[in-house]
């Protein structure tokens, strides 16, 4: 482990293989189902668990310190923009459900396409400004901070 795949739920779609940041979710060539090829490089990041459309991937805590019998399950719903967790303790005394928003806006729609923005002026290029600045720093008036504007001077050596 730590992630593992239930044989009866996995249909070999490969979404976990596509997303795993550690390159450890692979397809078994015989049964054509996904599995974790290198548990000791798994971070329990849950990227594959969240990506699996069949809830076929689960996590069992690391064997070097986590006893068996617990459960931390997750459902990530992009359309509704929410993520739901359910945590069940080993002794069954705690069973928690927690909900959180994952985005406040539809995917991608509000991210500007910078190729469509007006070409930056030479003045802008020569300045220290980045895209949308200085407006986006203070979201009102006022320029960018400089040493002079903030009354600072360079000084070398020991200084606390």
């Amino acid at each position: 482990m730590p992630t593992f795949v239930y044989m009866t739920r996995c249909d070999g779609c490969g979404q976990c293989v596509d997303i795993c940041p550690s390159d450890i979710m692979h397809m078994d060539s015989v049964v054509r189902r996904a599995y974790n090829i290198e548990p000791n490089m798994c971070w329990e990041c849950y990227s594959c668990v969240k990506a699996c459309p069949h809830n076929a991937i689960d996590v069992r805590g690391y064997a070097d310190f986590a006893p068996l019998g617990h459960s931390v399950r997750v459902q990530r719903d992009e359309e509704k923009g929410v993520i739901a967790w359910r945590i069940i303790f080993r002794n069954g005394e705690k069973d928690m459900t927690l909900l959180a928003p994952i985005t406040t806006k539809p995917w991608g729609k509000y991210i500007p396409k910078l190729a469509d923005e007006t070409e930056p002026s030479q003045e802008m290029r020569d300045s220290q400004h980045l895209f949308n600045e200085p407006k986006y720093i203070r979201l009102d008036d006022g320029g960018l901070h400089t040493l002079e504007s903030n009354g600072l001077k360079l000084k070398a050596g020991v200084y606390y």
Partner: protein
Amino acid sequence: MAYKTIIEDGIDILVAGAGLGGTGAAFESRYWGKDKKIVVAEKANIDRSGAVAQGLYAINCYMGTRFGENNPEDHVRYARIDLMGMVREDLLFDMARHVDSTVHQFEEWGLPLMRNPKTGAYQREGRWQIMIHGESYKPIVAEAAKKSADKVFNRVCLTHLLMDESKPNRVAGAVGFNVRTGNYHVFKSKAVIVAAGGASNIYKPRSVGEGAGRVWYAPWSSGSAYGLLIGAGAKMTQMENRIVLARFKDGYGPVGAYFLHLKTYTQNCNGEEYESNWWPQLQEMVGKEYLDPEASSLTHRPIPTCLRNHALINEVNAGRGPIHMITMEAFQDPHLEEIGWHNFLGMTVGQAVLWAATDVDPKNENPELTTSEPYVMGSHATGCGAWCSGPEDISPPEYFWGYNRMTTVEGLFGAGDAAGGTPHAFSSGSFTEGRLAAKAACKYIDDGKAEGIRISDEQIEQRRAEIYKPMEHYRVYRNEITAGSVNPNYINPRQGLDRLQKLMDEYCGGVTVSYMTNDKLLHIGLKKMKVLEEDLEKIAAENIHELLRAWELKHRHLTSEAVMQHTLFRKETRWPGYYYRGDAMKVDDQNWHVLTVSRRDPETGEYTMEKAPCYHLVEA
């Protein structure tokens, strides 16, 4: 070999690595270079890659100038004292004056930022941190990068930078391989922005066996930010500034929100406050300038993180462990309890798994804290990385060679973990550094500095042979033995990693020696590091996945050697609590209030070390 060679030519800006730094670089490049060809190479999938892959529950660097909270110089003061006086203040100030615009954009893109219902400002958990629901932080910023880049190559692990053959010390692109198809990828580019990751797993972790991947920083952060740059002969700085984290034991769950927002605190096994007992002795070691508890409580100037580690480490060594986080009080409030759990689920699920598995309910039981193994990185609260040029309106001559965030190799830029001396950038700061590097890289190209780049087929072929050598080696020697992984002619990547971790742990101040080292140990360590380098020439990869691990290990090895060289050079204990030089325990401002800079000759592997002045912009 049957792998295809795929050449991407005519690139203007190649972004190496697409975590928060790389996504920032790709995004901003498009604004300043509308007609430029921008290409991203990422060894995982850009949607979930880098240290923020699993999410983040806080943005740890936000000034809040708009709400009248902080100015950039306040952040410089804070980072400087936290790093015991040693930061690149020009780069820090520059990042800090831009970081708010990055965060305001994130909110506009849909990242849920929490707000304080009374003030209307973003909900603070500390002076620099704001709280977010950041499970989808990475996918959101990945959208921005994908919209800006011409092409994103997922699953391409870059191993080397290409160098220009018409002009010495100028970059010309990069090469690597696809970790799924095995194909060889060549990127010919006028400028390269390295935004790859810092180094986890160079020290033996506390976790063992199946759990070895349960480390604080992502196990896929393989030191490529340093391996790529050192391999190309770029100057590096502050590589001795490794970081040790105080975290919840075994799960490595973050403590920031617990301390700052939930107002939890620590006690030793006897239920006593212990930190302040260590201050008098420690003050003698570091001087009143860095540790003045009275002044700290008056001015709210925090006690440096490493010194608080020192107290924890020494208390445990004195036999008064474990150290407990007192959560039982805060967790009686259902709202705070929920935040405590969300904090893990949004960024370190493993901690929630651990508590569920061990029946530790922080409402009824105070969990244990411990210190982690060391990490080498440049974006969290530590400043390893390349020696970069600063911005023209701020930097003194020694810090300025024309283009913001350009390394000492022409056309090669650094952001995030790759830019040195700029700690406390975290996620938003890394994205901002990527943006700054992107603007400078566009200017570098527009100024005609990248004209006439030449890359011979010979260079490309040479790198190709080098990259696949571990697979070739495996093929040649595999059948000399019956079965299994013990072979007299090679080691596999896991065996090599185990050796590297043991070596770093024992000789360069890891966990098992209580972070202690000295001149003699470092010399032995460096000797063993050279021998390991010889064995890495004989590393064997059974398949493409192992080839990925082999190259990650080589980058980790280059990083580790730099850490040892720097630790040997700086003959003082600048950051007690992160590491100790047993033969030079005191902070020595007389001789060492300087930045350390190294260069590894790419041809000979020889190191040259130098000191660089530490300039201050900001009054105390």
